């Protein structure tokens, strides 16, 4: 089953490392043959919980790339 990930690149999210999250997911996508759709978006309206990442319909705040990958792995299980 594929999952949709939206990563916010707004100011607070950028400062909290959203670019690293994007790169981590792209790398992860290359390594494992999964059906992950990644999209960078301008604002998820969760500025206080930066960096904001929406996986399917749920918004998370993974502090490190590893946390995001763990979240994805959990969703894929």
């Amino acid at each position, binding site marked *: 089953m594929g999952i949709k990930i939206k990563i916010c*690149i*707004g*100011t*607070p999210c*950028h*400062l909290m490392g959203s*670019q690293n999250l*994007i*790169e981590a997911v792209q790398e992860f996508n290359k390594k494992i043959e999964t059906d992950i759709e990644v*999209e*960078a*978006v*301008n*604002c998820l309206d969760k*500025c*206080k919980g*930066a960096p904001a990442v929406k996986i399917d319909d749920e918004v998370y705040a993974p502090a490190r790339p590893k946390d995001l990958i763990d979240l994805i792995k959990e969703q894929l299980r």
Partner: protein
Amino acid sequence: MFVETSVSRISKYNEELCGDNVEIVETEDSKIIVLSDGLGSGVKANILSTLTTKIASRLLEKGIPLEEVVDTITNTLPVCKERQLAYSTLSILQIFNDGRAYLVEIDNPDSFFIDSKGNISKIETKKRRVGDKEVREARFQLKNNEMIMLISDGVTHAGVGGLLNFGLGWDGIAEHFERIISKYQSSNKFAEELIEVCNAYYCMEPGDDTTTVIAYFREERELTLFSGPPKNIDKDKEVVDKLISKSGKRVIAGGTSAQIVARELDEELEVSLLYHDPEIPPTSRLDGVDLVTEGLLTLNKTVERLKNVSCQEDLPKQRDGATELARLLLESDSINMLIGKKINPAHQSLRLPENMAIRKQIIKRLVDCLKEKGKKVTIEWF
């Protein structure tokens, strides 16, 4: 139509002050450019040329005839004790908004006419006497993308005492200038590069004050920048309408602002991940808008970029949001800003320095910087 003016100069070797002076005055329907080269060099020359340009530009601005201007200058300049002379050269160029041009030269080298294809020629002038001075005069019509370059004799003499016996001369300068204009776009860069060439021929020790002024007659370039959501959501549509109705380039700086425009225009906003820069967030794409960037960080970086350069050619080669925005701003003459007053509480909790985090402060720094570069800036707050 618009007249872009650029000045570049170097002082005689070991002199702190330049003996050439340039004064640019804007009247309601024209731009007047006055270039003067004072006798000798250093302080004395600087005083003579400053007086000459100031007197000439102010009198011409008030519509005083040339004869009176020349007469006033020759009778007012302080006399040099050693040489018993009060002397400075003078070039005056007045370009009206409809392209009519009036050129007067007194003892300065012939000015350069550059057509829209980059071909250089001399301007045909008529000689007449005003008092004891021989005045070369011309009236002509400029077309879109044509240029006039005024120079002091330090330019045509480039190389004397350095690489050449008799200097580059008018033709030598024209040859170098043709090569320069085929490489760059802004008159600022043209002027800077030409002075660099002269300096090189002087072996970095100029034998005279060397000055060039370029007047570039072209269409005015406008840019509208929308940044920050309006305080009142009811104003969203009005701001977007204003942004879209303006001619020229359109830029949005701010994620929420971009989302407002996308919503109002019913267009898709797409983030483009073309680069990874920890300091500058990615840009986005939106139909009908030339550039969409993040707000706070990008605007701060844009001010930094603008402060470091004088023309777009000197910007770094990378295509990040701040560099692209700085490029568009440098290319524009008239900048309209549509700035929203809504405060993003999340920005306040980032603990950034006040002058970085508050929109009003960033915009003020950006406007100051643009005005310093001769841009016309208007701001509307929402």
